[in-house]
């Protein structure tokens, strides 16, 4: 337990790391920062460095250099051409650069819907509450909203265009309010007068009471008064909105009807960040409990927690490009840089058309949202998270873990603190759901048995899954992709290792796994959660004085909102890597890389396996052939350099 006074020296910073799909490598040439690095000192207390991307649709540009990247640092905002892993950019030639006085940019968002080859509307929110709309390419555009701070004086915490909209955008403030603006409307010269529009448990929505329509169109007040909204995220289909706040709540709304459809509570402390799984079925939140919490949209409950960070989790993001893989070496956990997998192989979900990737690519899968899950067997999600602990964690989350019912551990005090039914108290009665779960669990079991039989022959199973993956990578639709990935290549023991459940009580993990195969239990839990919903539903519209379950964190513990720590699976990260000396503040997964940003103002690009660019491979990588055959040579040569 010795404390290192140097706090972990520079020697343990990672510039590359290995996961089961291969080696990720820091592209030092693709490092972005302020052009003049002098004076990069005091980052204490300044706004987090965030990064926004836009892909300019320009079919005439065969090089695919249509990406622009924006980041903020201190009082400055920079927009650069982004070339991913391919090429360095002259930092002295930004597309646009802004220096603000008396305020800091805190967040920004490009409008992917209206972006053209020579226009990219960019919203910027500020620490003093104002909002600016600029076009870093066209340059002439500059509109201000909340200029005189009549609408809200507090810091803008998150700003996003409404998905698919040309002119509507949503802004959250640290005052706990969320506003809908139309970029074409004025904000008025007086403070807005509001009238109540809708209210529910823990939120209220107002409209502006004026003759002519003005901004803001709607004002959402979420949580207790003055309770900071830290981030919000639209579901991939755009119809649901997840909001996380300093009061430790995740609240998910049906965006159009403005109904609260579900919520969750942190284990403790505020929730800081939120994202949706690419298929819209799970919401993941990170927060001040150092945990990554996974919430099921369909079951309306916390289904798992991830423990691996050493401090608050600042960003969570799904990696839509790494949805599955085959692993055949039980001894390889992907956690050691010095280990190279024996049967390492990569697969990429390459798309023929580059423009359909990045954010647009994800949006194109919106048809999958909201529909009842049809995925059989195990989808495996890849999640990433970065934290104030300067580390990146990657998580592999399989559906079988997420489907485990809440396991109420026998404990003397468990009954006393909650008046609500927990799992196991309601009998199953929902036929269709039961069947569904039974089918799935049977399917899983069969597969697991098959895997065990295969366990002795590593090479065989490796070949098997290679072909599986190749086949999968040709499927374009994400849903299909998710659905197509069977459990076939995963072995029971291996599974345990990589998704180990660190249950508190010894032996608890065994019983959990047994429960997992019971379809009845899962249905029981569904019923439970719907009961809980009806409880909260009955409180909708009630006066705030009425004691709501939501107001009392001690009544929430042990429920679907906030299971006890040993009541839901605890996941361990696949890898956990220290990437910087300062707090990490951003994480964006892209097709050929992922991007991290750091509190000290640096934006780093990490090449995915097979996408590394060495001095000799630039030309080949520019055209990016399918790499299924050649990444090994790359990795090996890089490794020998490294050692």
């Amino acid at each position, binding site marked *: 337990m010795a*404390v290192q006074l140097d706090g972990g020296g520079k020697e343990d910073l990672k510039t590359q790391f290995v996961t089961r799909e291969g080696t990720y490598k820091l592209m030092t040439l693709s490092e972005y920062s302020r052009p003049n690095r002098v004076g990069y000192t005091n980052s204490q207390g300044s706004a987090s460095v965030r990064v926004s991307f836009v892909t300019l649709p320009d079919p005439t540009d065969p090089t695919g250099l249509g990406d622009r990247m924006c980041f903020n640092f201190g009082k400055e905002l920079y927009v650069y051409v982004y070339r991913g892993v391919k090429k360095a950019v002259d930092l002295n030639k930004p597309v646009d650069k802004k220096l603000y006085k008396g305020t800091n940019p805190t967040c920004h968002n490009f409008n992917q819907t209206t972006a053209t080859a020579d226009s990219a509307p960019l919203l910027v929110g500020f620490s003093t509450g104002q909002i600016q709309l600029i076009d870093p390419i066209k340059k002439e555009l500059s509109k201000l909203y909340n200029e005189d701070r009549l609408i809200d004086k507090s810091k803008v915490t998150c700003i996003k265009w409404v998905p698919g909209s040309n002119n509507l955008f949503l802004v959250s403030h640290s005052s706990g309010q969320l506003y809908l603006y139309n970029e074409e409307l004025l904000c008025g010269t007086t403070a807005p007068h509001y009238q109540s529009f809708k209210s529910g448990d823990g939120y209220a929505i107002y409209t502006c009471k004026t003759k002519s329509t003005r901004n803001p169109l709607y004002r959402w007040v979420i949580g207790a008064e003055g309770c900071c909204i830290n981030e919000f995220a639209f579901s991939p289909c755009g119809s649901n909105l997840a909001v996380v706040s300093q009061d430790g709540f995740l609240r998910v709304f049906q965006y159009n009807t403005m109904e609260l459809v579900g919520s969750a509570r942190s284990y403790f402390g505020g929730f800081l960040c939120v994202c949706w799984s690419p298929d819209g079925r799970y919401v993941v939140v990170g927060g001040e409990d150092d945990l990554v919490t996974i919430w099921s949209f369909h079951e309306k409950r916390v289904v798992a927690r991830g423990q691996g960070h050493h401090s608050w989790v600042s960003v969570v993001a799904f990696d839509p490009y790494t949805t599955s893989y085959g692993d055949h070496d039980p001894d390889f956990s992907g956690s050691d840089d010095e280990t190279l997998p024996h049967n390492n192989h990569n697969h990429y979900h390459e798309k023929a058309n580059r423009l359909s990737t990045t954010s647009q690519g994800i949006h194109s899968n919106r048809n999958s949202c909201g529909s009842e899950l049809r995925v059989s067997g195990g989808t495996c999600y890849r999640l990433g998270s970065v934290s*104030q602990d300067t580390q990146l964690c990657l998580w592999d989350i399989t559906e079988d873990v997420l489907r485990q019912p809440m396991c109420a551990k026998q404990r003397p005090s468990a009954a006393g603190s909650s008046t609500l039914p927990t799992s196991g108290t309601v009998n199953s009665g929902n036929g269709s759901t039961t069947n569904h779960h039974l089918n799935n669990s049977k399917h899983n079991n069969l597969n697991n048995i098959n895997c065990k039989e295969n366990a002795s022959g590593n090479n065989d199973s490796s070949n098997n899954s290679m072909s599986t993956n190749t086949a999968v990578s040709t499927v374009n639709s994400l849903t299909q992709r998710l659905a197509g990935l069977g459990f076939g290549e995963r072995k029971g023991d291996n599974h345990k290792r990589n998704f180990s459940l660190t249950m508190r009580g010894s032996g608890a993990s065994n019983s959990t796994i047994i429960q997992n195969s019971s379809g009845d239990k899962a249905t029981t839990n569904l019923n439970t959660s719907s009961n809980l919903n009806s409880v909260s539903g009955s409180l909708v519209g009630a006066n705030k004085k009425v004691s709501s379950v939501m107001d009392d964190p001690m009544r929430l513990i042990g429920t679907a909102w906030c299971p006890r*720590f040993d009541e839901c699976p605890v996941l361990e990260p696949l890898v956990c890597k220290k990437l910087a000396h300062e707090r990490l503040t951003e994480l964006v997964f892209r097709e050929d890389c992922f991007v991290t940003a750091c*509190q000290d103002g640096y934006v780093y690009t990490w090449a995915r396996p097979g996408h590394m660019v060495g001095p000799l491979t630039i030309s080949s990588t520019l055209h990016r052939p399918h790499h299924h055959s050649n990444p090994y040579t790359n990795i090996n040569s890089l490794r020998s350099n490294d050692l």
Partner: protein
Amino acid sequence: MGANISQLERDIGSDQFPPNEHYFGLVNFGNTCYSNSVLQALYFCRPFREKVLEYKARNKRTKETLLTCLADLFYSIATQKKKVGSIAPKKFIARLRKEKAERSQSKPTGGKCGAGDAGSPPEPTWVHEIFQGILTSETRCLNCETVSSKDEDFFDLQVDVDQNTSITHCLRCFSNTETLCSDNKFKCDHCSSYQEAQKRMRVKKLPMILALHLKRFKYVEQYNRHIKVSHRVVFPLELRLFNTSDDAVNPDRLYDLVAVVIHCGSGPNRGHYISIVKSHGFWLLFDDDMVDKIDASTIEDFYGLTSDIQKSSETGYILFYQSIDCN
């Protein structure tokens, strides 16, 4: 000073000012800021304040102890006519100095420990009721695999700090398994000899008020002195413990941060102590005789520094977390 005091009332707003609450600074008698900061933190641990005032009401004309001096001081603050101001804890400091000289063991947290010890007969007192928790240390002999466990009381947890971590993480590390070997072997009753063993300490009984003492002053052989560890350690306004034992009675106990003693400066032998406290939903900063209302967002200024260059820092030193089920 007068301007500052009325400023506080203005900041809070006269209609918002909590009834029956007093925000009084404590005059510094020269190097007494460590005591002032701890006194303020304890005063705003409501269960503790209430018990001290109860004690004051119960015990008239007893022999002067540190506890009677503390009770007089708390009583004097609680019965002030004005809502804000400053007060000189003259008697308490005199008594504290006297007892310190007598016992010649000095600790920055002397105020608290002194108060607890002075009034506590061997049987449990209300100080135990508020601050006492139980740690259970489990030791597994690596020779015979026998697990033996031993309980011990604690009034605060002293935790090592790591750079860029949270107090949650530091507490988890506190309960990491350590191997007892070489000079530090474990005397196994079963084997009747010294054996290598694995040991971990976890919390079995969670106290009503959890006092966390961050070990920010570290002896470094190289310099032959204690230096300050300014590592950035974030502490949430709400806390649950991960390092509870399997047989813990109430492992889900949820805590609210109510007070923080802060060390300002570059080393253990210089610098200044202040405290921030939560009272009726807002945060106040007590700097000896000065009291200011602060925004909750400024608490992050007291997490520490991410840079390892030694310089002056204002860092959380003692954290007081109060269980939300105690009121």
